[in-house]
């Protein structure tokens, strides 16, 4: 006796893009949802009561189907990852005006504006671009925006930890109200100051009162006593040097 069947439908929708039916051949029947947003990061200064405008480009990469897009606001934690809105002291909630939901035509690109009214203090958060039908989006892209007072300054606090494995970890903190943008170079020196090599520190932006960690890898083991001399530059400021030694 065969086992009774209970065939019940379940639809798994990985993206609810309302794709138009394509041609019959197989390659065209695979639905694709694709969109882009930029820039990932923007910062501006504004005096209290003044607005700052952040322009965002959004593109529907689907050349066949329209794409509904909406915008949400989220907070950022101290490391710059999104968290629930209105949960941090730097939240943009109440200050930012988001674009209304809109539908992009196939392949269409639009530039929209997010306006943030300054209250004279530092605020930051994420404008989350949500792609797909309301209630069933297929993807979100989190863009970060920062607004500071015109005189806000960053205060870097850097710790460099080189290890014999060749790993060099940079723990970066910004204790100021301004945005901290750093880039630099790590010079590796022998204990008697002979040059062994260098590693570039990529550009990193650290939120006001935020932190970040960067791990760089030297391709060889580092002998005990090797000096990691880290020279970091901040736009418009003198470079500063942090020395650390491989234990």
């Amino acid at each position, binding site marked *: 006796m065969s086992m009774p069947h209970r065939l*019940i439908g379940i639809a798994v*929708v990985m993206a*609810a893009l309302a794709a138009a039916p394509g041609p019959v051949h197989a390659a065209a029947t695979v639905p694709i949802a*694709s969109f882009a*947003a930029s820039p990932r990061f923007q910062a501006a200064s504004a005096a209290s009561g003044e607005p700052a405008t952040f322009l965002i480009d959004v*593109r529907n990469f689907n050349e066949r189907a329209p794409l509904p897009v909406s915008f949400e606001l989220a907070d950022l934690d101290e490391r710059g990852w*999104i968290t629930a809105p209105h949960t941090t002291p730097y939240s943009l909630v109440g200050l930012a005006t988001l674009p209304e939901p809109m539908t992009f035509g196939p392949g269409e690109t639009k530039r929209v504006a997010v306006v943030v009214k300054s209250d004279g203090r530092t605020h930051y958060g994420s404008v989350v671009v949500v792609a797909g039908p309301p209630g069933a989006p297929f993807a979100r*892209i989190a863009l970060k925006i920062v607004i500071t007072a015109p005189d806000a300054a960053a205060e870097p606090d850097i710790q460099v930890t080189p290890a014999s494995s060749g790993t060099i970890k940079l723990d970066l903190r910004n204790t100021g109200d301004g945005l901290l943008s750093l880039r630099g170079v790590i010079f590796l020196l022998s204990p008697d100051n002979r040059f062994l090599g260098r590693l570039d520190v990529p550009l990193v932006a650290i939120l006001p009162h935020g932190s970040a960690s960067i791990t760089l890898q030297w391709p060889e083991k580092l002998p005990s006593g090797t000096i990691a001399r880290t020279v970091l530059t901040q736009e418009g400021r003198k470079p500063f040097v942090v020395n650390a030694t491989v234990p």
Partner: protein
Amino acid sequence: MRLPRFFAATLLIAALAVPLEQGEAANPTMAVSPAATSFAEDVNSPGSGWTFGTGAAWFPAVWSDNAAYTYTSCVRVSAANANGNSSWSAEYTTSPSTSLHVGLAVAGTASCGTPAAAGTDIGNSSFTTLNQTGNATAYYYVVVQPTVAVSSTVTISLTFKVQSTAATLAITMSPGNAIAVTITPSSAGLLEDVTLSAGNNSGWAFAAGKPWIPGTTWNDNSAYTYGTGAAGCFTVSVRTSVQNWNLSAFYTTSPTPSKPINVALAQAGTGSTCNAPAAAGTVIGSSPATVLANQGGTQTVDYYVVVQPALAVTSNVAVTMTFTAQ
């Protein structure tokens, strides 16, 4: 015999007075305007002059169609004092060495227009002959197509040459700042069958022995892989130049079933590779779970979507997975 001083001076004056033969006395010159320009490269940028696809008539035929840049205003190149039959040529170099294509599409001679014919693919450190000779002025679209998203600033030196003289356009290309997310396929329909019988399972599997079934948190009585084999994957592609990005996922159901549905993502490969996952999948819930962390640049990841209804559903249920790139 020594020439009288007066005679020598007379010869010199006479020589200087002879009209110059065209093309032999004055050195040829070449000029490029502007001499330098810059743009933010972004093969994922939604705007700012980047175009995608081969729809433009001037797109060099030998290029792939996934990314292209048009230099938004013309580059004016002119040559003077050149031999009439001497061909122009051009080459480019990059610093640091970067994989990209450079093309030149003629946009006019008297003025800057729109290129009507396919551009010429220019050689990397190797001069390519252009369809232009002698004394002339030409306007070009410089088309740049990075083959990979750059993560640091690149200088492209585009050199035009006629005879032995040359002029260079320096293009500074900085990394872009966009993120693009692509889901393929973006929807699929699965016929759930928790009462599996041989020959009628349509891809449903009931064994917990599969390495990609999430650990101990799931029962082993019912599970589904989104298809099987090479066709079983769906692909999430994040195209970007930015570093240190994360991708997370969560899911919702509509309508809400009487019993929960377990959902997991098991990595089945990268790029165009789709194999049976070798490791336990990441359980996806109603709040975002990180599936990719600390990524840099473009990444394409293939997944099995593993769905395990706790109870047979009695009507269609839409399971929507949402990916967040940040």
